[in-house]
C-alpha cells in the first residue's frame, strides 16, 4: 500500500516529576500511509495525546522528554528538525484538532481574526488581506456553517459546541495539511451532532486527500472514521489491524475486554469489564504492562515485553499468546 507519510518508531517519553520519572510512552510504533485514515483507540491516560504532541513537537519540556525513538515525516526525522523547519511543518504539513473546541479557541478574538491569522501564517505573506478574508469565509462555508459572513464576525461564545468544533476543523484544514491529527474531536458533542461532525470530517478528508490520525476512546467512532486501527494501552501499541479485521477478529486480551465491556445496542447485559485500573507510570509493571489486569496472563508476561508479531493478514499484535502462530 502506497507511500509512507509518517512513521513513529520505538518512541519513549518520560515526564520528570517531584516523585521521580513517569515512564509514559514505552516504545510506540505507528505508521500512516499517504491518504490513509488511521484510528488510535485507548482509554484515558494511555498516552494517545502525548504521542500526537510529540509528532507536532509541542510536548511541554520540561517536564516531558523524548528519551528514544524517531518520528519520520516523509523520511525526515521531525525530532531533529530546527525550529524554522518545524514551523513550516506546522504551517503546511500537519494540523491538529483538539478535544475541547472551547479551550482551543481564544475567547477574546473573533472567529474571523483567529482563522485569518492561521491562513496568514500558513501563506507566508503571499496573500493580500482581502484574499485571506475571502479564503477564511470560504473555509467556513466548506465546514457547512450557516451564514459564514456572520460567523466570521462572531466570538466563540456566540456559537454552540458543534459550531465551535466546525470552526476548529476549518482552521485545521485552512492550511491544506498533508496530515490531520484529530484528538477526540467529537467527545464533547452530542450523538446527533457527533454524527454531523464525523460525516463532515470524512467528506473533507476525502475531498482533499488528507491523511488522518483519529484519536478516540470510542471503538464505535473509530469504526466509522478509520481504515486502520491501532489499540493503545499504558504507553504501548498492543494491536493494529485493518478496521474490518480488527472488529471481526480482535486478538489482544485488552482489545477483547474493551469490546466486551461496551454496552451493545442488541442488549444482552454488560460484561464485568476489566478489573483494576491503568497502571501508575511512576512504577509501571514489568514485562507486558497489561499483565496485572490480564485474564490470560502467564509467567513470562511479567518478565519480558511481548514482541509485535504478525498474527494474520495485516494484523499485528503484541502478546505472548500469539507467539507461535506466524513469527516473522
Amino acid at each position: 500500500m502506497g507511500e509512507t507519510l509518517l512513521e513513529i518508531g520505538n518512541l519513549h517519553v518520560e515526564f520528570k516529576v517531584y516523585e521521580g520519572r513517569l515512564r509514559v510512552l514505552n516504545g510506540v510504533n505507528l505508521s500512516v500511509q499517504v491518504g490513509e485514515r488511521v484510528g488510535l483507540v485507548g482509554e484515558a491516560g494511555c498516552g494517545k495525546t502525548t504521542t500526537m504532541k510529540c509528532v507536532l513537537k509541542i510536548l511541554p519540556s520540561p517536564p516531558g522528554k523524548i528519551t528514544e525513538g524517531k518520528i519520520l515525516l516523509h523520511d525526515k526525522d521531525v525530532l531533529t528538525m530546527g525550529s524554522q523547519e518545524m514551523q513550516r511543518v506546522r504551517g503546511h504539513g500537519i494540523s491538529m484538532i483538539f478535544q475541547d473546541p472551547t479551550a482551543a479557541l481564544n475567547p477574546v478574538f473573533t472567529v474571523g481574526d483567529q482563522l485569518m491569522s492561521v491562513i496568514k501564517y500558513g501563506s507566508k505573506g503571499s496573500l493580500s488581506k482581502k484574499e485571506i478574508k475571502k479564503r477564511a469565509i470560504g473555509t467556513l462555508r466548506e465546514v457547512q456553517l450557516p451564514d459564514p459572513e456572520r460567523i466570521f464576525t462572531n466570538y466563540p461564545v456566540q456559537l454552540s459546541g458543534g459550531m465551535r468544533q466546525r470552526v476548529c476543523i476549518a482552521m485545521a484544514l485552512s492550511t491544506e495539511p498533508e496530515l490531520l491529527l484529530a484528538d477526540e474531536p467529537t467527545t464533547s458533542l452530542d450523538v446527533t451532532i457527533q454524527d454531523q461532525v464525523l460525516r463532515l470530517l470524512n467528506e473533507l478528508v476525502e475531498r482533499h486527500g488528507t491523511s488522518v490520525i483519529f484519536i478516540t476512546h470510542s471503538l464505535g467512532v473509530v469504526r466509522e472514521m478509520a481504515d486502520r486501527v491501532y489499540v493503545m494501552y499504558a504507553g504501548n501499541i498492543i494491536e493494529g489491524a485493518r478496521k474490518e479485521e480488527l472488529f471481526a477478529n480482535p486478538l489482544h486480551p485488552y482489545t477483547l475486554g474493551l469490546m466486551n465491556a461496551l454496552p451493545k445496542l442488541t442488549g444482552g447485559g454488560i460484561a464485568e469489564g476489566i478489573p483494576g485500573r491503568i497502571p501508575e507510570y511512576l512504577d509501571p509493571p514489568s514485562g507486558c504492562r497489561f499483565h496485572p489486569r490480564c485474564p490470560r496472563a502467564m509467567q513470562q508476561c511479567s518478565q519480558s515485553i511481548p514482541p509485535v508479531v504478525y498474527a494474520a493478514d495485516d494484523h499485528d499484535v503484541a502478546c505472548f499468546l500469539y507467539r507461535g502462530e506466524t513469527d516473522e
Partner: protein
Amino acid sequence: MNNKILEVEKLRKFFTTSRGTVRAVDEVSFSVEEGETLGLVGESGSGKSTVAYTVVGLHSPTSGQIRFKGEDISRPVSKRPKALKQSIQIVFQDPGTSLNSRRTIQQILELPLKVHHLGNSRDRKERVGELLERVELPPDYMYKSPHSLGGGERQMVAIARALATNPKLVILDEPTSALDVSIQAKIINMLLRFQEEMKLSYLFITHDLSLMRNVSTRVAIMYLGKIYEVAPTMKFFSNPLHPYTKMLLSSIPVVLPEEEAVKPAKITSEGEIPSPVNVPPGCGFHTRCSEVNGICSQKIPEMMEVEPGHFVWCHLFPVVTNPTNSEKGVSV
C-alpha cells in the same frame, strides 16, 4: 399498577434570566415503578438533569406535581421532612466535584449517617467499613482523600454515600459518562446488583442509548424540555416511532454488524437543538424533523398510546378520539 414509587405530573421548571425565560422542563409527566429502572435519555440542553434536580428538591418546581409513594413532595429540599430525604438520594455525574476534597472518605460517608442520626460514632465507623466493602473498596480507603482515588473509585464512594441512608429511590445523573468503558461496566453491574439486593428504584439520566438498552426497564426520550416517547425497553429499541428517536438511534456509532442491523434506517442528523429561551412553536422538534408537515409548527402534539405502554407525542400518530384513549385514566 398502583406500585408507583415516583409520579411526576405536568412538571414545569422555568428559570428567569436576563435574556428571557428558560423553559428547561415544560409539562413533563412520567412515573417510576417500584424496583424498575426508568432511563431518561436526552441530549445536552434537553432538561433531563433539571428533572432530576427538581425531583431531589434542588430546584422547586414552577408548576406541576411530584409524588413519592402518593405523597406530594413538590417543594424544595429545605421544606421536605428528613425521612423523605433519607429515601431519595442522588449520584452526580462528576465524582471529582461531588466529593469534598478536604474531607476523608470516612468523613464523606459518615455525614449522611450523622445528619439522619443513624447510630453512635462506633456504629457509624462500622457502617462506613460495611459501605466500602459493598462497593468493593478496601477498608483502609476510609483514611484516604478523594483526590488520591481514581475516577471509578471516586464514583463508587459517591454511590456508597447515596446508599448510606438505605434509600428507596436513587437518581443516577449520568453516573458513568465521565469514566472509561472498562470501569463503566464494573459500576453498572454493581448498581444492578444493589438494585436487586436493596429493592431500589432508579431514575437513570443519561445520553447513552446503548447503555439504556442493557440497563433500563423503560426508556423515556426528552428533547427541549418535553418527553417525546416512552416505551418498555424492548419495544423502544425494536419499534422506535418518533422521528427524533429514530434519528438518535441511527446516529449511534456501534461496533458489531448485528448492532448495525438493529439500528433504524439512517436518518441524517440535521441542525442543532434550539435554545430553550426561544422554543419553536408547536412540536419542539419540527425544526430538525425529517417528516415535518404543516401542522407540526402550529400545534403541540398530544400523547398517543400506540401499543400498550408505548406512548408517543408526534403528529404522525394522531390521537384517535375514542373513549378509551381520551379517558383521563391513561397515564405514562
